[in-house]
């Protein structure tokens, strides 16, 4: 072989490409890709079902009646007044029912009626329309006091009050609704980014488990830098995610184009009137891609490090649970930071590498300033490199051992890991 032929190992990016190509093809033509494609449907379906069930349960449990126990004429007047007000106030009025039409001189104990806990009666109105007495729990009494006063006032009126007609003039947004809309955009983006990242990092770690289970890792470590293995795996899964997103976008576009699905009601909201993010839609989408990439690379590299330094597949699985929990906590912290723009919580979320992409994406949704994104992206990129380098270094130090191992100190954490079943590898 002549000196012109390269002899040294593959450069980092070339080696990473070899790994990425293998992983990409392997995942794309495996059944796991089908699960990956369908993955986003699971939380949607579960969320929709849970929301539907929750609503029905809530409806069933919160449809309480306010009962009227007055003289017959007063009961009728109260019910009539209620019916007249319903078209204007709708759900803001409690449901009014007649409980008892009292004979002259007859007394009625509303507390006794409520303590009987029969039917859906949550409150009882006694007395007269001029002096109504509302008996209910303190919470309900405070909630319905005004409404009962309004109904009673209408019941006392000899003729229907002439309510003026209020003309309306619509605007698409206002300062307040814009702010709320941007927060909703941020929350939706963060949630989507979190779900996709959880899926991807889980899968990227499973590919490392595959390597451990198949004992290929030493062949890779002998031939190419471990950093390249990490980068390659992350890149492959990123490509897989891009394919997945492309499939989803194509499917949705197909539904709109061919099946005639109305885009204005897509997902239950009007896509034409989405609130514009702080940095504008084009930049926001670009930043979303960048922050998603950074988030995936940072969290993926942490997961890969965990996967690579664990001695057994069992350990990988054991350690991935607290890592996922930590990921959820980071997501909550970043979401919470939305309520504290410019405050210590947001700054801390931006500075902490694991929550930084979430916090910055949220910031892009609600705030106009662009310059903070540049240092933030640099900061996150630095941590990506540090995590990957650190993970590769840990792998070489801790994993590539052979021969007799020294007795390990058994701390409580080590004991917890060691108590798992024997390594299936």
């Amino acid at each position, binding site marked *: 072989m002549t000196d012109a032929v390269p002899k040294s190992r*593959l450069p980092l990016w070339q080696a990473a490409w070899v790994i990425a190509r*293998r992983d990409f093809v392997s995942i794309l033509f495996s059944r796991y890709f089908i699960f990956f494609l369908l993955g986003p449907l699971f939380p949607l379906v579960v969320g929709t079902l849970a929301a539907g069930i929750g609503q029905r349960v809530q409806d069933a449990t919160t449809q309480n009646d306010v009962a009227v126990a007055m003289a017959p004429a007063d009961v009728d007047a109260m019910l009539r007044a209620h019916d007249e007000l319903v078209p204007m106030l709708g759900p803001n009025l409690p449901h009014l029912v007649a409980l008892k039409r009292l004979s002259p001189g007859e007394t009625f104990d509303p507390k006794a009626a409520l303590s009987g806990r029969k039917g859906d009666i949550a409150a009882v109105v006694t007395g007269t329309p001029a002096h109504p007495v509302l008996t209910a729990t303190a919470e309900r009494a405070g909630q319905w006091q005004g409404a009962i006063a309004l109904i009673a006032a209408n019941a006392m009126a000899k003729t229907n009050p002439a309510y003026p007609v209020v003309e309306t003039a619509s605007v698409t947004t206002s300062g307040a609704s814009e702010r709320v809309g941007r927060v909703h955009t941020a929350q939706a983006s963060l949630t989507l980014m979190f779900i996709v990242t959880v899926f991807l990092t889980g899968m990227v770690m499973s590919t490392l488990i595959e390597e451990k289970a*198949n*004992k290929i890792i030493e062949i890779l470590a002998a031939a190419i830098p471990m950093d390249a293995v990490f980068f390659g795996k992350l890149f492959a899964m990123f490509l897989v995610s891009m394919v997945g997103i492309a499939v989803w976008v194509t499917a949705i576009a197909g539904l709109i184009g061919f099946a005639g699905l109305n885009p204005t009601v897509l997902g239950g909201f009007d896509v034409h009137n989405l609130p514009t993010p702080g940095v504008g839609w084009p930049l926001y989408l670009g930043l979303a891609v960048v922050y998603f990439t950074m988030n995936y690379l940072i969290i993926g590299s942490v997961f890969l490090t965990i996967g690579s330094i664990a001695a057994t597949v069992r350990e990988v699985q054991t350690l991935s649970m607290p890592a996922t929990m930590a990921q959820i906590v980071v997501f909550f912290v970043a979401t919470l930071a939305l309520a504290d723009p410019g405050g210590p919580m947001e700054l801390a979320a931006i500075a902490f590498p694991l929550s930084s992409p979430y916090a910055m994406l949220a910031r892009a949704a609600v705030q106009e300033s662009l310059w903070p994104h540049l240092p933030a992206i640099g900061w996150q990129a630095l941590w990506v490199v540090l995590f990957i380098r650190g993970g590769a270094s840990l792998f070489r130090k801790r994993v590539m051992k052979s*021969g007799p191992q020294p007795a390990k100190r058994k701390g409580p954490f080590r004991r917890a890991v060691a108590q798992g079943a024997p390594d299936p590898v």
Partner: protein
Amino acid sequence: MLAFTRAVYRRPVDAALGQAEINRNLARPLAVEARGLVKRFDGTLAVAGIDLEVPEGAIYGVLGPNGAGKTTTLRMLLGIIEPDEGVRRVLGHERPQDVARLIGYLPEERGLYPSMKAYEAIAFMGALRGLPLEEGRERGRALLEAQDLGYAAQRHIRQLSKGMAQQVQLLGTLVHEPKLVILDEPFAGLDAINQGKLEQLIRALAAKGTTVIFSTHVIAHAERLCENVAIIAGGKVPYAGSVEVARDRIPPQVRLETREGDGPWRAALPADARHEGAFWYFPLPESGIEPLLRALIEGEAGILSLSIERAGLHDAFVAIAGTAAARALEQESPVEGQR
């Protein structure tokens, strides 16, 4: 700080070594050279200062029981792990990574992606060493054909037997035509037929000028294949050099069978002669066999049989590494390598 001062193999001249062999070795540059390699894991000394010199084109055996430090030594030579102390030079470079494309490595723990086809697995391993994927595929098919495994080229690894998968991995180790091949326990898990095929393959590689280093705990393989070995025990190398020299460290053993159980002839036997069954065993006296024969005949021993056996590598191993290491070796492989 250790440093290399020699570029060629200069083994100490041994009286028992043929001058022709010495001259041949002196002329061969070193493929691998290591000085004082030390490796500790969490404070435990795994390798305690190993020196190695592997001439180019040699078949070099690294012998020792499990846990002796063979795999750690090979991993340090490959750059998978860095030594805590000492220096190494592989194919003329102190960083093995600088010649990674010229090295093929078969680790002790065999592994391939089960979902890959056999020829793809070979191509992938070549790609890791810089071989273009398409060329790797072509070579993969050709190598499988040459090993009478052409029919398995399109099969997934999970469909292959363990022995076949092991052969596929070995071909993946060789697909980029490395100048140095390092095999960690390559015979482990192979049946006798495949062990023989592997021995042939190793000889063929060496005939083409490829340097082959393999670790084994089966002395028979090293004895059949190697001209040079390193014996590793307890993380150290008590001996590294020619197999012939190792064997010649022990004088030939005499086995004597006599008709008479006792008589004046007994005085002719060395003091350390031992009697086992019908035979006497003792090292050949420095004066040679003729004076002994004369004394036995004159002493009317009634010689039924007498043989002089040259010491094997196993005897040399026992003498060099100690009986404890030899016993560990025997316990690991009581039948392996006995073809």
